[in-house]
Every structure is written in C-alpha cells, then in structure tokens.
C-alpha cells in the first residue's frame, strides 16, 4: 500500500483486501447501537452523581451530539463507497476537508469496540494478549489508531 499526502488530502493506493475490509467495517463498528457503545459514546456529564442533570443532558444535548457524529460517519461512508478498483487492489481518497470526520469516526469506532469488548489499558499496551473476537477488536483498535495518528498531523480538529 502506498500513501500519498498533499494539500488536497490523502490517497491510499494499492490497498490489500484485508485492509479494505477493515475500512469497510468502520461505519458499522462506530455505530453506537448497543448499550456498551452508547454508554461510552454518549457519556453522562455528572457520571451519575446528579440524575436530573444527566437526564436533562440526554434530552437536550445528546441529540445534537448524535447528529454531529452521524454527519462524520456519513462522510466517511461516502468516501468508502467510491473507492476505486485497480486490478486487484483498491484506492481510497480522503479529501482534506473530510479529515476531521475521519479522525472522529475512527476514534468513535475504537471507543465503541473498546466498550463492547471491555478493552483495558493492559490490552492496548500489549501487556495482555487475546484471541477470538476480542483479539480481533484490539487489532482493529490498533489499526484505526495508526490511521488517526497519520491524519492528525495534517488536520485541524
């Protein structure tokens, strides 16, 4: 895979199938459709200390956040839907203006995966190894984190 960075954005050229699949699952991974992910993505402002304030937050603030997050995820899904196929590899273009949406969606996916699989600091720093679904989730978290680190250098949050 070759990555080109310019003022226009990023081009990921010659992506192998495994990487393409990891990217294609990104919007689904980021979706806060289950309790664990929802609780992490939309965390309570008083952490449960003030039930009324947390309830007001859910009613008045959370819908705006939900809409903002969906805007980011939709942009990413749109970029993924127009990946170009060249021979047996794919090319992904991320316009510079979409950098923030990508960083957000990658991060949302990491947080949602972490919440779903109860990922701890020991898991992310490699002190503990897992197989199966949790091991795969940690691999996704690492891969998406690598992309965030790359995009962060050229993106205004």
């Amino acid at each position: 895979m070759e990555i080109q960075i310019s003022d226009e954005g990023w081009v990921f050229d010659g992506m192998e199938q495994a990487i393409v699949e990891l990217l294609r699952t990104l919007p689904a991974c980021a979706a806060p459709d289950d309790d664990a992910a929802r609780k992490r993505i939309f965390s309570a402002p008083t952490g449960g200390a003030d039930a009324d304030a947390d309830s007001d937050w859910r009613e008045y603030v959370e819908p705006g956040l939900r809409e903002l997050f969906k805007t980011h995820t939709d942009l990413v899904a749109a970029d993924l839907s127009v990946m170009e196929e060249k021979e047996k590899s794919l090319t992904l273009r991320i316009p510079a203006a979409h950098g923030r949406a990508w960083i957000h969606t990658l991060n949302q996916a990491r947080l949602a995966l972490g919440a779903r699989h109860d990922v701890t600091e020991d898991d992310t720093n490699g002190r503990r190894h897992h197989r199966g679904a949790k091991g795969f989730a940690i691999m996704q978290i690492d891969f998406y984190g690598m992309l965030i680190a790359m995009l962060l250098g050229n993106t205004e949050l």
Partner: protein
Amino acid sequence: MKPVLAATGGDVLTEEETQTQEALDIPWNVIVHNDPINLMDYVTKVLMKVFGFSQKKAEVHMLEVHQKGRSIVWSGARERAEFHVQQLQSHLLLATIAQAR
C-alpha cells in the same frame, strides 16, 4: 434548599439567600477522565482546541489524565462548565462536571 434556621421570618430568608449565594460562588470543575483508547496526541490536540491551551499546558493535563486517571482542566460557572463538557464530548473525551469542594 431547606431552611436551616427556625422559621422566624426574615432570618430564614437571609440564611437561605446566604446559602444560595455560597452555592453559586462555589466553582464547577471540568474533569477529563482517563480511558484506555484515546490516543495521547489526540487528547492533547483536543485540549488545545477546546481551551486554547498551549501545547505544553495541554500535555501537562494529558499526562495527569494518563497517570492519575483524571485532570481538572477548567473551573468556573456551571453553565460554562457544561458547555466545555459538551465540547469535550463532541471530541469523544470522557469528561464530567463536578462542583469544587
């Protein structure tokens, strides 16, 4: 708020007003909590953007979050504190408000 003094007209009102004013005067802290997922560079950048911190100051808070589990990043009026928490949460940082003691 429940009156503390016996109901003796003006005394009750005065005490209530005093306590209310004291409650209003106590600042609210904006606290960023550690999580095992958010990248350290990302947390630093978010703190710089939301609070206008220098990179050095943002890194100090980021490291405090990472090493101690939490960092108070702002203190002041409740409404403003809630606004900051909303901004932090829009960047997916784990942030809460709590009244300082």
